[in-house]
């Protein structure tokens, strides 16, 4: 049952999106999200949606996987819709009953907010987690944030912590599975009883799990020290990230598209102007 969790799942592949420099993916994702929140009208969203569909197609991950990624945030989308529909003031009232009033502003706001969140999630999935291995991702993060070292932010250490955390997610899931099987063999029952009984039934899993996590952490720390690990200073990398010609092309194309989207947002007159 725990094997079904697809936290930050990575689909190995050989597409152009997979081959992009991870730093570029990171930067473009941030720019894309910024553009999403700067735009309002339909035209910029057609442009932004269009380029994302192109990216998904190029990544060859498959649209099914991408929509599957939206499932966990369905509740968030529903709540966003409700809040925006009921709590936006101004505009024309299109429905009114007792204390509930729905305005056209509210409906527009709700629609665009949901669209924004959906596009944001799809963009981060296709560009980042689905097509970039966790190690590449943290490497990229470290590289992009490295200017912060000047103001004494421990960028390398933070990236290393992230790498280790990501690396141990599958290990700990496997361990949990094993401990659950072992306790089930001794007659532990996780599936029946009320809330309190079920919570109590978790103790035989959580305690061994914590103990083994601490043990692993200690072993890993020792192993790293034995190999003279001492942080970022003067450390070279196995995989050196390099901007290829392809990456420059992608960078300019995406900058152009994003600029076009934002520009169309300011000039477009048939779009609905919202606050």
């Amino acid at each position, binding site marked *: 049952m725990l094997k079904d969790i697809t936290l930050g799942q990575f689909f190995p592949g050989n597409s152009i999106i997979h081959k992009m420099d991870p730093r570029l993916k990171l930067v473009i994702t941030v720019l894309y999200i910024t553009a999403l929140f700067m735009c309002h009208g339909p035209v910029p969203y057609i442009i932004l949606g269009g380029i994302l569909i192109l990216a998904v197609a190029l990544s060859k991950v498959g649209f099914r996987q991408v929509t599957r990624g939206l499932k966990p945030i369905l509740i968030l989308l529903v709540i966003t819709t409700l809040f925006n529909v009921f709590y936006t003031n101004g505009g024309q009232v299109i429905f009114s009953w007792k204390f509930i009033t729905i305005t056209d502003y509210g409906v527009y706001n709700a629609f665009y907010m949901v669209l924004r969140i959906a596009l944001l999630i799809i963009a981060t999935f296709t560009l980042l987690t689905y097509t970039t291995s966790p190690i590449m991702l943290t490497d990229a993060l470290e590289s992009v944030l490295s200017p912060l070292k000047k103001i004494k932010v421990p960028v390398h250490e933070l990236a290393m912590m992230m790498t280790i955390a990501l690396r141990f997610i599958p290990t700990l899931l496997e361990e949990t599975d094993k401990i659950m099987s072992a306790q089930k063999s*001794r007659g532990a029952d996780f599936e029946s009883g009320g809330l309190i009984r079920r919570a109590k039934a978790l103790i035989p899993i959580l305690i061994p799990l914590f103990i083994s996590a601490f043990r692993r952490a200690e072993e890993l720390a020792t192993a790293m020290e034995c190999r003279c690990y001492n942080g970022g200073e003067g450390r070279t990398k196995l995989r050196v990230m390099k901007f290829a010609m392809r990456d420059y092309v992608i960078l300019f194309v995406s900058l152009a598209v994003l600029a076009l989207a934002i520009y169309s947002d300011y000039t477009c007159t048939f779009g609905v102007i919202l606050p």
Partner: protein
Amino acid sequence: MDNIIEVLNLTHTYGADTPFEHTAIEDMSFEIKQGEILGLIGHTGSGKSTLIQHLNGLLKPDSGMVKFCGRDIWDDKQFTREVRFSVGLVFQYPEYQLFEETVERDIAFGPTNMKLSEDEIRERVLYAARSVGLDDSILLKSPFELSGGQKRRVALAGVIAMKPKVLILDEPTAGLDPEGREEILNYIKNYNKETGATIVFVTHSMEDIARVVDRIVVLEKSKILMTGTPKEVFSRTEDLIRAGLTIPVAAEIAGKLAKKGIPVSPAIYTIEQLADAISTLYAGGGKNA
């Protein structure tokens, strides 16, 4: 002897219909006899661990059947739960599954889940602890302050306390020193003798298994490669090596001597048998010269 467990055409596939699909067990059939010590040997990834999790109903077969005392263990929910208690499974490195504040309470976890009376639980805890050579004084200690070997025995006692009719042990001697291995093997043998319980001993180490078991099932790549007594199995040295298994040193030496034309039986698999065979040879040779 009656069959206590029967495995019929068992197949299990992990991650069906995904790119990670992997068949761990394929059309496997064999039986475990009441009261025997059965060795289950196979190279890493041969399907051992998946197989034993079917024997007490932790995993459900994709196809095929596991029968306990002649009845399909997935017949009804209540029976599956009963089988969990009747077929005790000790996982690899069981000491990592200890969680209670005291050794006594940890051993009592299984019997408590069986909803036995206080007195019965107390009696079983003492019995289980003694049967793996744990001193009564250890019972009130925290399991986390014990040595590795002691922790392993506490975990073993935790399963024995359920008094299972079949005790399955996955690599019970892994990571122990020779003395610890010897002790564990002896406790297992004694448990079998005292209670008449059936033991399934899972390992990839021939050395351990050779002296303890009555019968061996060898797995290779999710299938059964051969079944037989240690004598029968260890005389097929070449097949075993091809399956990626090491054979007992004694069997290896016997095999090499036989190849050189020295009349040593290829069915030898313990150091004692080898020593006997060689000394008889020497005694005989002395007379002839």
